């Protein structure tokens, strides 16, 4: 089974209190999408980079994992069951531990009003689907200071 089949590739020891222990070279990225296709593409794009990848398949799980794992950056789908991306963003901005984490919306809904709604809720940036690995990596490097 290839490493693309693993849901999470969090390095051993990088748990809830791990932010200080995580090396400066590797960043923890939370991938949130209800589409396994998109998660697969994101894993392929980021899997060979200096990223520890964790995933969530809906908005409720996204909030739980973000609060537990304290990622360095979140790639967040908008249209999801149980809780959409906008609601996730609003919720995470209310918690001290996730208030400053960069949140990049990954979405097909790129119309102006939706972009504004996202930014007003605390989104950091947007990337449109379909995206290339180069586009995704450029966004991450830009917001993670790499």
């Amino acid at each position, binding site marked *: 089974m290839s490493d693309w089949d693993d849901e999470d590739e969090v390095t051993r020891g990088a748990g809830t209190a791990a932010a200080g222990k995580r090396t400066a070279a590797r960043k923890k990225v939370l991938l949130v999408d209800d589409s396994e296709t998109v998660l697969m593409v994101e894993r392929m*794009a980021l899997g060979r980079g200096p990223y520890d990848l964790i995933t969530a398949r809906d908005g409720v799980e996204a909030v739980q994992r973000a609060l537990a794992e304290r990622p360095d950056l979140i790639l967040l789908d908008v249209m999801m069951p149980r809780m959409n991306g906008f609601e996730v963003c609003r919720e995470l901005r209310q918690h001290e531990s996730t208030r400053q984490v960069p949140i990049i919306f990954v979405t097909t809904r790129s119309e102006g009003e939706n972009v504004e709604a996202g930014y007003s809720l605390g989104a950091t940036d947007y990337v*449109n*689907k379909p995206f290339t690995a180069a586009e995704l990596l450029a966004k991450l490097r830009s917001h993670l200071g790499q």
Partner: protein
Amino acid sequence: MRLEDATRPELLTVLRSLLQERDELQHKLDLLVDEHDRVARELAGVEREHAIVSQMHVATRLLHRTLDRRQVISAILEVCINLVGSEQVALFERDDDPQRLNLIASFGVDEAAYAAVSVEHGAIGDAARGGVIQLATPDEADAAGGKPAVCIPLRVGDAIVGVIVMFRLLPHKAGFEQVDFALFDVLSEHAGVALVASAGAR
């Protein structure tokens, strides 16, 4: 030699030497810049190729990892929506009547309007009869009752078992790129096989 003590001829000699060294360094710098640009272009080309191969791998993997018909159909739509970037997709399959295609799945499409399509005419019919991917030009796509952006025949050997139709792309997607054409080939070659295999597995 101390420059303060140098004669004018000596200073001129030093100056000529420095100018020559400057020219040589400038030439080397120009070569390095050219080499850097060449490597950057090659890297960009490799990254493009890698992106295409990665997308093709994802699409192929999605199509063939299950024999569950519902999941195969879902995978086909996923490729069209999330990898190509279409907001109106219809999947047609041939049934016992070779002149007709039946709609078996869709996204963003008026299903009643496309419940069954004849292969006698239109871009969808052209794809089903000729087995060739039908692409609309921007003018054709924009015209009233416009031609679908792409119609992809689904092949199993020489037989055409269905057609994938992407009527419209997402608003921010200007048009098809090289990676999309590669995905069309994957869909044409593999989606039909996956559909038939899943039907046989029932």
